[in-house]
């Protein structure tokens, strides 16, 4: 856990956007706030952060943190999550069993996270400030673990006191460290020791249950006994709660999770007072659920997360033509319905035009794609389609175009907000909430900016070809290939589905024509019963034509568009891989540069030119720093990309399943109707005499 706190700083380094920095400040404030109160008294506030943190690492991937501080550690933690099987991790877990205090000082524990020792060095101060509470939390977390055995799961205040008492003691330890850190940044590695242990201890509890001290086991068993049924929901809700969903559930677990979800510290404190008595228990539950998570396989973890629903419904409706002629544009109503506290109200509506959506994408992609995030791409601009809409009056094809775009925009926004990190982006919030948006300029088709972008893309493509990255990571090696193949096959499938749509439309048309023809035949028939039956058949065929038509539009909207979306999304995934490759290239370049500098130094030494030597040494130091920085950046982006891709895969499987089920349901519905129509016709056919 502490590991995560330690790692929290790195995400903020140099390259961060101003917005991010702002955010991190907020976060820091939040934390300092808590830490102050923490020093005064072991007030519940202090218990809050731990929950956040504890809650996140395991569940992280989807339910993202609300403040940047939280989110960043999470990333770091994630890097470790996938590798619990690595030897280091195993060491980690087995070690702590012997003795906690030993573990704290044990070097092995620190090994697994060497980078974490380095990171703080460059961390901005605010982050450093932000850390201590986290440490404390971690420490407290540990306490909680020891605690629950004493009390029941139902938080009694006595338990709470005990907890806080212990916490307090711990906190003091930490405080020292805390005081130190700002001054001697290089000393930081040390403080990181204990928290790491805490973290590992938490994990080890779960991993080696039987051997662990009775207490934790008790805790788990007790929990299992008291709330066996509640557990799964609780844990899943806890992850959803982090998104700020509140509901008036009465059980203690959910109450706990409600706490967790609070994003603004102010709110937090208020709430906390209200729910004071139940605090320790929730913490315990959180701790247990979080500690349980690492023991699970990644897949299980994913399963669990896939259950969370978060309460944010976005719909794009009422496309409306604004203006006339070539300056006309379509405006859409973007309605949001949410209980997330990060928004000012529960429901709100804004009007946005297509270029606003593109603008949002531009902003998001500028900020996030370089960090390895998969930023969902918006639907493509269609000059032809839009021109038709602008010029044409009530043409069915332009109506279809508008509906298609509306649906695509809706899916686009839903994908954006379902990404935990993007949801946090102020631009997203602004897009959803703010009445008037500054006009997005760079989206003009082939405007100057567009041209530049194209140029960039071209150079990117060239550099992509020239960068020959020898992939060290087997996972990435395979994944990149997989994504490439998948995209190709997806395109093929898309073509097939498009052809299905066309053929179904054709079928519908041909059925209509046949219906007319049969009706004519019926009118010519001189046998009255047969004539009647034929005109009934014509009617049936007419209805079937409608059915085919509806099905064709279902083919298109639920199936074909889904594939089109995923082809675009796979493009975005590939973009992530490219970003990672770029980071790698930067690192390698720095490495080469460092090599050159070193050679230069050696030459100087040999030539015995002491006057220039110092400068060379400085340069080496500078480049060494850069190398470490770039390497870390590469690792970070690798971790993020990996996490993102896993998340993407999971979302994709879920999304695909949902859409396919929906599509099959539409087919089912068609067949049901078909049965109805034919069954109604059967007596008519039998009545022919």
């Amino acid at each position, binding site marked *: 856990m502490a590991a995560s706190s330690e790692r929290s700083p790195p995400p903020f380094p140099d390259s961060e956007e101003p917005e991010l920095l702002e955010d991190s400040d907020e976060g820091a404030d939040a934390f300092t706030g808590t830490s102050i109160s923490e020093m005064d008294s072991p007030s519940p506030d202090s218990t809050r952060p731990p929950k956040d943190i504890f809650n996140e690492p395991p569940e992280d991937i989807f339910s993202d943190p609300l403040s940047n501080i939280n989110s960043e550690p999470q990333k770091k933690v994630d890097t470790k999550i996938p590798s619990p099987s690595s030897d280091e991790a195993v060491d980690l877990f087995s070690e702590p069993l012997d003795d906690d205090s030993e573990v704290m000082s044990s070097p092995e524990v620190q090994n697994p996270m060497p980078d974490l020792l380095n990171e703080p060095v460059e961390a901005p101060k605010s982050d450093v400030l932000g850390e201590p509470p986290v440490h404390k939390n971690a420490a407290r977390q540990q306490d909680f673990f020891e605690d629950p055995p004493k009390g029941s799961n139902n938080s009694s205040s006595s338990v709470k006191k005990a907890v806080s008492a212990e916490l307090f003691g711990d906190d003091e330890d930490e405080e020292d460290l805390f005081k130190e850190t700002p001054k001697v940044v290089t000393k930081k590695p040390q403080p990181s020791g204990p928290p790491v242990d805490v973290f590992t201890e938490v994990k080890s509890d779960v991993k080696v249950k039987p051997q662990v001290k009775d207490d934790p086991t008790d805790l788990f068993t007790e929990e299992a006994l008291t709330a066996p049924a509640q557990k799964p929901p609780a844990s899943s809700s806890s992850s959803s709660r982090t998104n700020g969903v509140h509901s008036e559930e009465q059980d203690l677990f959910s109450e706990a999770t409600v706490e967790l979800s609070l994003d603004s510290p102010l709110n937090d404190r208020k709430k906390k007072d209200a729910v004071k008595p139940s605090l320790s228990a929730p913490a315990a539950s959180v701790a247990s659920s979080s500690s349980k998570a690492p023991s699970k396989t990644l897949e299980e973890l994913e399963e669990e997360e896939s259950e969370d629903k978060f309460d944010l419904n976005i719909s794009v409706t009422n496309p409306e033509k604004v203006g006339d002629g070539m300056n006309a544009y379509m405006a859409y109503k973007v309605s949001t319905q949410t209980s997330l506290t990060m928004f000012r109200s529960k429901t709100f509506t804004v009007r946005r035009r297509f270029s606003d959506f593109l603008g949002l994408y531009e902003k998001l992609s500028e900020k996030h794609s370089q960090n390895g995030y998969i930023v969902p791409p918006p639907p493509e601009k269609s000059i032809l389609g839009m021109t038709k809409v602008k010029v044409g009056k009530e043409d069915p094809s332009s109506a279809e175009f508008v509906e298609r775009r509306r649906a695509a925009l809706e899916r686009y926004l839903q994908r954006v907000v379902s990404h935990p990190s993007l949801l946090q982006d102020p631009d997203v919030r602004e897009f959803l909430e703010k009445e008037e948006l500054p006009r997005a300029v760079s989206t003009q088709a082939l405007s100057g900016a567009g041209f530049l972008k194209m140029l960039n893309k071209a150079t990117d493509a060239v550099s992509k070809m020239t960068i020959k990255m020898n992939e060290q990571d087997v996972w990435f090696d395979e994944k990149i290939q*997989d994504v490439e*193949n*998948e995209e190709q*096959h*997806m395109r*093929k*499938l898309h073509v*097939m*589905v498009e*052809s*299905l749509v066309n*053929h*179904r439309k*054709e*079928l519908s048309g*041909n*059925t209509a*024509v*046949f219906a*007319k*023809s*049969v009706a*004519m*035949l019926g009118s*010519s*028939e*001189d*046998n009255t*019963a*047969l004539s009647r*039956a*034929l005109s009934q*058949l014509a009617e049936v065929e007419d209805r079937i034509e409608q059915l085919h038509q509806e099905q064709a539009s279902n083919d298109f909207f639920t199936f074909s568009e889904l594939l089109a979306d995923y082809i675009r999304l796979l493009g975005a995934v590939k973009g992530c891989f490219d970003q990672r490759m770029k980071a790698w290239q930067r690192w390698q370049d720095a490495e080469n540069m460092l090599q050159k500098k070193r050679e230069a130094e050696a030459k100087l030494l040999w030539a015995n030119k002491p006057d220039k030597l110092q400068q060379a040494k400085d340069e080496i130091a500078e480049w060494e720093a850069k190398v470490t920085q770039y390497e870390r950046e590469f690792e970070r982006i690798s971790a993020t990309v990996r996490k993102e891709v896993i998340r993407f*895969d*999971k979302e*994709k*499987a*879920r999304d*695909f*399943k949902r859409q*396919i*089920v929906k599509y*099959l*349901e539409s*087919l*089912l519905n068609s*067949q*049901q109707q*078909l*049965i109805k129509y*034919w*069954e109604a*016709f*059967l007596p008519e*056919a*039998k009545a*022919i*005499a």
Partner: protein
Amino acid sequence: MTSISEDSDKEKVRSVSVDLNNDASLVIDIPDALCERDKVKFTIHIKTTLSSFQKSEFSVPRQHEDFIWLHDTIVETEEYAGLIIPPAPPKPDFEGPREKMHKLGEGESSMTKEEYAKMKQELEAEYLAVFKKTVQVHEVFLQRLSSHPMFRKDRNFQIFLEYDQDLTVRRKNAKEMFGGFFKNMVKSADEVLISGVKEVDEFFEQEKIFLLDYSSKIKDATAKAEKMTRSHKNVADDYNHISGAMNSIAADNNTAFKKHLEKCAEVFEKLRKLEDRVASDQELKLTELLRYYTRDIQAAKDLLYRRARALADYENSNKTLDKARLKGKDIAQAEENQKQCLRKFDKLSESGKKELTSFKARRVVAFRKNLIEMTELEIKHAKNSMSLLQGSIEILNSN
């Protein structure tokens, strides 16, 4: 080379027309057929109690050309002018499957094993469908003849049925082919010419109007039904391709996605089969019915033409008689001619009336039967699709 035994599918085979074998004294069916290159050899099985046949049960091999010969000789028989002559079966058309076979051969190297196997299967199914249809339409032709009181006694028909060697009828040479074409032209022109002849019989007047109208309508409906059926086939093909494409995505995947994809591919594969059935049953029950009656109505129209021709002849003979009387010579010959024409016309009118009435009844019964069968099949397929979809949705939802 495909040989099909039709025994198991007798029900289906006799779908176009009403059961014509209601008379047990002469039962004809085609239990087997052999396709060699562009020749199709049918095995015709005859069971009879009629004394005119030497044996009571026997089989003979016949080719499509033999059927055409039989049809032509019947058409040319003056005696049958007052009858609706059962339309000749169309030439077996294996172009579709053959073309596909060609493609299959070409694409063999570029396809995966599964794709190849699947396509081969598809091809076989299509081939079988065409084959069945061909056999059926030939069988129906013979059954129509055998169930007709006049045709069943026809000499050529008996030869066709009984001669136990290959008939090896002489193929039409180019001159005859052209002659046939020319005859058709003359007939069409003649039809226009005699259309001016005033109709004396209300029944035939109406029948003529009806058949002309009906003929164009049913032709149109047939073309539209063919298109519709083809669209169904296209949709089925798309399902097939979708299934294949999904499988190839699934092949490279190992997440939960894979399971879903594989399931979907399976669903689409099954949907394809169902959609294919819908298409082929629609083809067999609806399109084929319309097609057959397009031809049958043409046969009925031919009867009307022959009668109208006879009427025109009679009127001409009347004129000739009047002229002869005016001139006072060749009266007896003209009278004889006029009488003959009248007799012929009356005979044609009488049998034509009967034929057309029974044709109407036959048509209604055939439509009824086919429409019911088609509807039942549509319902059956839709129900199968429904349960398939329901099951798949449940499976998808459960994992």
